[in-house]
């Protein structure tokens, strides 16, 4: 696909994307390669493409991750709903949630980045896009998280989700009157509950700058068959 990248319109395309997503053009080139690899050189990736990635097979929250790519809310253009297929732009946009922060970023930027990542997580929970994570939704995620841990998974997941919900409620509405009940986690509450949690080290991926083809090929071939 070398000829592809050399073409000037692609260069322009890259630059646009770079502006939009904050990736460097090298990073975009790398990701584009991967995109083509995943899509089988198509313009778009479909759900099946992602579901067939062998490396993902063992991921307990595979479904949520893939959903996140097809979720319009993660495209940051204010829409919600589901995409059927995603383009490189969409792909990069989702990826850009995990861009490490710039070395020198102000407190505000940091905060904004954090918020954005939280929003991403929130969206993973909130499958029906109604702005709250209900217990059912929460349970589902926890269940999937624990789905790899054998027998206790199912039963425990429920309990854990319940306890977690209780926790959210008690943190956010400490003065709840006895006759109130908690309806679901809103984004504000979500932010609140994960307030002290460090995300810097957990929600970043070091996207490769240089096209370290050998490395990528080596790893790529070892884990993916195409």
């Amino acid at each position, binding site marked *: 696909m070398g000829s592809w990248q050399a073409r000037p319109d692609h260069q322009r395309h890259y630059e646009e994307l770079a502006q939009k997503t904050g990736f460097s053009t090298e990073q975009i080139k*790398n*990701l584009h390669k*991967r995109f083509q690899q*995943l899509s089988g050189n198509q313009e778009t990736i479909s759900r099946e493409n992602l579901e067939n*990635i062998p*490396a*993902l097979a063992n*991921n307990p*929250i595979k479904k949520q*991750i893939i959903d996140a790519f097809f979720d319009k809310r993660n495209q940051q253009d204010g829409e919600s709903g589901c995409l059927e297929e995603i383009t490189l732009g969409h792909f990069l946009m989702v*990826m850009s949630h995990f861009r*490490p922060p710039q*070395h020198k970023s102000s407190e505000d930027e940091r905060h904004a980045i954090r918020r954005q990542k939280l929003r991403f997580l929130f969206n*993973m929970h909130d499958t*029906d896009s*109604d702005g709250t994570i*209900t217990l*059912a939704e929460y349970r589902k995620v926890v269940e999937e*998280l*624990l789905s790899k*841990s*054998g027998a*206790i*998974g199912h*039963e*425990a997941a429920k*309990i*854990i*989700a*319940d*306890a977690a*919900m209780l*926790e*959210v*409620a008690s943190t956010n509405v*400490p003065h*709840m009157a*006895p*006759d*109130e*009940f*908690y*309806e679901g986690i809103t984004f504000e509450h979500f932010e609140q*509950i*994960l*307030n*002290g*949690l*460090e995300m*810097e*080290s*957990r*929600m*970043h*991926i*070091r*996207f*490769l700058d240089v096209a370290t083809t050998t490395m*990528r090929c080596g*790893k790529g071939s070892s884990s993916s068959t195409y």
Partner: protein
Amino acid sequence: MHVSLFDSCANLEENSSKLLQKKKKCLCYFWMCPRGRSGDTTRVVVWTLISFLVDGVKSGVQIVKMDPRLSKHWDVLLFSFAVLSVLHGSAGEIPGRPTTGGGVTVLPPVEPDGPQAYPEPEKDNLPVFTMDYPRIQIPFEITLWVLLASFAKIGFHVYNKITIWVPESCLLISIGLIVGAIMHSVNEEPPAVLTTNVFFLYMLPPIVLDSGYFMPTRPFFENIGTVLWFAVVGTLWNSIGIGMSLFAICQIEAFGVQDINLQENLLFAAIISAVDPVAVLSVFEDVSVNEQLYIVVFGECLFNDAVTVVLYNMFTFVAEMPVVEPVDVFLGVARFFVVGLGGMGFGVLFGFVAAFTTRFTSKVREIEPLFIFMYSYLAYLVAELFAISSIMAIVTCALTMKYYVEENVSQRSCTTIRHVVKMLGSISETLIFFFLGVVTITTEHEWNWGYILFTLLFAFLWRGLGVLVLTQIINPFRTIPFNLKDQFGLAYGGLRGAISFALAFTLPDNIGRKQLFVTATIAIIIFTVFLQGISIRPLIEYINVRRTNRNLDTINAEIHCRLMEHTIAGIEDLCGQWSHFYWKDKFMKFNTRILRRILIRDNRAESSIVALYKKLELQNAMEILDTVSGDISAAPSIVSLHEEKKAPAKPKKKFLAADLRSMHDILAKNMYKIRQRTTSYTSKHALPNDSRTREILIRRHSSIRRSLRPGSFQTAVLPKSHKYFSLPAGKNLDSNFPPVRQRGIDDHETMSEISFPAKHARFVSPSRASSKAALPLRRLDTLEEVPSVDFLDERRARRGLPRTHSSSSEPRRHAEKSEKENEDNGGSSVPPVWAAEPRDGTTRNPLLRRPQWNPKN
């Protein structure tokens, strides 16, 4: 005590300074040879202690005068020693002139004062009272030293504030200084307990085992590259940098240290590049700096001990070589790797063997912890045998086995292991710092302003430079680069400590300027520990280093940590660019498929640690709740809960939000303690604080048993206890708890109220109690049932329905239905899982469910 008092008094009465001198020598010898071969030596330690008490020699004499008779019976006593030793067949020691049991006698034993005719007329009599101090002397004196140091530690913690602002090591050194001063003032020799062998074979292993065992595994492996980079390259950088610069300084004639050659300088530099930031770590923990910084400092101190010791051994060897040829340098480099990797190899090997062994120890719980210590120590000794890095060996051994061992052994053994590791490590370190203080005062120093000041300067300079340069190199490889503040923390956290001192103190005597080195090392330790150790907290707070709330022990945080990890792993898979998550994933797969099968007894209970913790938390919560309602005597500490218990008698309305909140607080506080086991162990001197929770667990077992014994749960025989068995059990609590539960619960409650109005009728019926008993764990399921009719009405009356019920989705309905089923079942024949357990009796109560947490004996 008495003996030594007696003895010293006797000496004093004799007023024989010569004897005293001999005594000191002997003491010295004793300390040099702590394995107890020295036979009869003096009881200096005890004597010293007494001297403190009686304020010096004069009072001692007075004591003697008070009881002069004692000394006259010296001979009798001696004789009785003889009899005793014969009776016991103990190595045939002749008291008063004991030859060494082990056959090594270097110094003549102290001549007991006075005439010494062995065959006394009384020899036919059986002694009524005998003393054999030499026999117990060594352990006795060691015990006293340890006690003294431990008392000092207790002392610090009487005033909590002191240890916040002044690191413990400072205080220990200070106490040591005071003791040293006292000893000095009474002309006492310092205990020369720190010989190379003692240090390396007995004092060092506990310290490193402690660090290795409590190393927070996950962050460590996430940052392993950086940690090793700083530990290995950083230490080399420091050693070589400082060594070279000091060598340059030595060329300046004005300082008068031209006789120190390059090898010796390097040796010295290696000694003082071992950082030991215990103090810093505890500060970091307190202000909860970001995890990366913390783990790098932690790991650095651990692994640079290893590097330092390797370098130390190498340079001691080199320093004794007359000529160093280039080939030796290469051999040295090669050796460096052999030593380091060899140590790791042994460590991993022994770690796996230890893990494998604990697979079979379920029948011998008593000695379970022993295996851990023996294998670690074995790893250490074997590594020492082959002269490879024993620190590396013991650390990797601890790291390797910890995970598997803790799953294999019983909970109590696990606690024991942790406590003992902590205790030994802390004793060793305390002693070293203590001796540091003593030695500072009592040894002769060679003070060379130029050399020592430059040492300080270079140590500081190279550390700073090293951190700057090394971070620049490592930063591009890190996802989260270290910023300048982090780097400052790293550089400033470079305190020198126990290891440096011990290494310097155990330098071979043929190093020409050993005294200068010891002095300089002590100087740099005291300088860094006091100055940097005290100032680092305000500085870190001032520059506002990036912080993490590492103590965020909520379920949500844990869930989201995991969620994020999986997300990142997934995204990395998607974008085809892998970091450590990828390797972690691979390792976990390997671990699950192979290692766990081999090493862990009960590998079918394969759950993530997180899940385990959560389970525990819930069990704990239940625990607490049970304790509240059931067996209050079992948890007398929860006073406020008594009120809760009484409360049910009052009308429901009286339950203020405050009560609920306090209940909630208790819940929240007690619920999550267990997870701290990963975080809270890292501070060197702090013991894990999860003991309380476990105690509750254990207590709970017994209380459950007790409460179960009288009768089956279901029967109405014990309505009270039955009610109280689990949190929301009885009706009385019913009124109390719904709100609490309610918070946790979401909308479907409202739905259920509407859609199942019939429930409320059932609600009051006693049959529901059983399902209520299950509430703590099935909280959400049972929620709908909880609100009693009046409660519900009240709510409606007061504020209408809080949420529009129309929005409830299909799943909710479903949940409700299933819940209803549950209820029905629970009420009559088939109780929900959780409710069932208490009924069945002890064996199946929820606390006993998981094998790991089941006290097996």
